[in-house]
């Protein structure tokens, strides 16, 4: 993502104080802990013009749940307005249509992570960017279904979680690789795919788009 943004002429800073947005605690019913992490995140990113995340889930947490958790003061409103998931940032702020032609002839499946899709409303952006690099984004009947990650859900109810990943993997069309904007989903799908020996490559959207720029 750093390379991609720099390639587009963006001055990238990575505040070294950043840690976690607080979503694991929030989703587990520990709002005080989540609030503490949200406060920290608010401080760390106070000066950035934009905050861009390679994760729809973390971006969703910050944009949709920080106001309820911390309050809607100016700091929070400002962070909400400045925070973007990567593909959203590329499309709506930078208005990028095409990053290159490096995915020409590639068949790609896109997994819509739940929080990017339903909390942030990110749906067309990643697909347009992949197609803009020449990829054929292949229809996938389960592309909007949850992969079964769900943070601690995947460890608390591993059997159901794995069955959900299996449904994704079992319905995959013939593609060169699968991509998504959420690391959690990719961890889940990669881990399950490897366990089953499926050999499918799961790649983060930033890496996929970087291939689009460089190949």
């Amino acid at each position, binding site marked *: 993502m750093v390379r991609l943004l720099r390639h587009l002429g963006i001055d990238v800073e990575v505040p070294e104080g950043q840690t976690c947005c607080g979503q694991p605690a929030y989703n587990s019913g520990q709002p005080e802990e989540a609030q503490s992490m949200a406060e920290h995140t608010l401080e760390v990113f106070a000066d950035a013009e934009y905050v861009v995340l390679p994760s729809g889930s973390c971006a969703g947490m910050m944009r949709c749940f920080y106001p309820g958790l911390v309050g809607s003061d100016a700091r929070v409103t400002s962070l909400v307005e400045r925070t973007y998931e990567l593909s959203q940032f590329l499309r709506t702020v930078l208005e990028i249509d095409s990053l290159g032609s490096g995915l020409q002839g590639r068949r790609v499946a896109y997994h819509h992570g739940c929080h990017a899709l339903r909390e942030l409303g990110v749906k067309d952006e990643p697909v347009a960017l992949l197609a803009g690099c020449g990829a054929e984004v292949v229809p996938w009947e389960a592309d909007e279904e949850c992969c079964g990650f769900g943070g601690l859900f995947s460890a608390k*109810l591993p059997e159901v979680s794995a069955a959900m990943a299996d449904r994704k993997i079992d319905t995959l069309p013939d593609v060169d690789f699968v991509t998504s904007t959420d690391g959690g989903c990719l961890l889940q799908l990669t881990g399950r795919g490897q366990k089953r020996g499926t050999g499918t490559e799961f790649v983060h959207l930033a890496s996929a788009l970087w291939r689009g720029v460089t190949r």
Partner: protein
Amino acid sequence: MSFSGPTNYRREAAKAIRDKPEVRDSVTAATRTFDAHRVHAWGQIDADRWRDWARDVKTHVLTHLDEYLEQAERQLTSNGARVHWAESADDALTILGEIVREHGVKRVVKAKSMLSEELGVNRHLEGLGVHVRETDLGEYIIQLLDEPPSHIVGPAIHRSVDDCRKLFHERLGTPLDADPDELAAAARDALRAEFLAADLGISGANFLAADSGTIALIENEGNIRLSTSLPRVHVAFVGIEKIVPRLEDVSAFLQLTSRAATGQPIGNFVSLIQGPRRSDEVDGPEEVHVVLVDNGRTSLLADEAAWEALRCVRCGACLNICPVYRQTGGHPYGWTYSGPIGAIIAPGMLGLKEALPLPHASSLCGACVDVCPVRIPIPELLVHWREKAVEQGLTPRVETVGLKAYAKLARRPGLFSAAGAVLRRVPLGLGGRALPVLGGWMQERSAPKSSEKSFLQMWKEGIE
């Protein structure tokens, strides 16, 4: 066979996934079809506006429940119906038992009713020596199989046509290669005799209009019409949350519910029942009893957040879209109401301790909130119950303490990175399964391969 409670959800779900893969196939196929029909049916109306309206009406009722219930009681009484109040399942069953005794009832036909499942009506009647027959095709199938319902709308959703062929072959003598029409015809013949011989019919209610004391029932098979009009006595079990202010509200709710449940503009049959047969009418029961049932609903109503779940119209749309429900069907949830709605009403109706781990039986994917016709904020309420479980000390300590430590670390970036470095060096492939949290992960997946360096290390060294 009846439900044993939600406590063993994980074990039962794992068992279903491992031992009954055909259930997952049947449920996935059927729920996807239901949902596709819903999408189509909502596309024909201004669904967002209908849903806003439905949410507002239900919210209004729930904040004036006492007034509307009393109005409904007055209207039903003046229509000639007898109204009973049941605080618990035991109360409801006692009331039913008295009606059965008073009328010397020997045979009962039942219309599909989730509330009657919740109350355990069949078992109770059988205990009283009464013959009871479910007349909805799906309910009939599971009654013959001695199974509880697996879905709010399609109780036999976990069963395939082949399962039904075998069952009907054994019980009704149909050929093993009978097509679905033949199977339905055989059930119809068997049920017709039951209708004609029954002394009492039992139904639930989809809605109860307070202004006119009207019970509204939606169905597709005509069995509710027969169950409620043929026998001498009709008993309707009505959850207190089923009330709407006016009969004209019912007309919109019937349509929205049908569209959400099965994608039909409206069910094939709608019955509107206000009381017993009048002197100028040729059909209908001599007595109508309406049992208004609480059974945990006022406890749910008292919760500062989860009361919104009482808006539910039991359409099953949240089950149909739920990727967690689809893997197992309803049985592992361990009680009458499964899927997302079951997981948020169980803690209020059964008690939080009894309902765990259902609030955790969700990846919080949020698909349900997009399909709920009365806009219940299901994912928020799942998190709400998780929060209460932590407050009440019902969550494993390793998790709550772990997350507290994690939150502390997250305020100290140096330590946070150091902890990450340690985690990257844990030989997950060897001992990972013994670790808390990671153990669950490692059971079903391969170990994530850690990068040599953290992103921040790479950043500090310079990314080219």
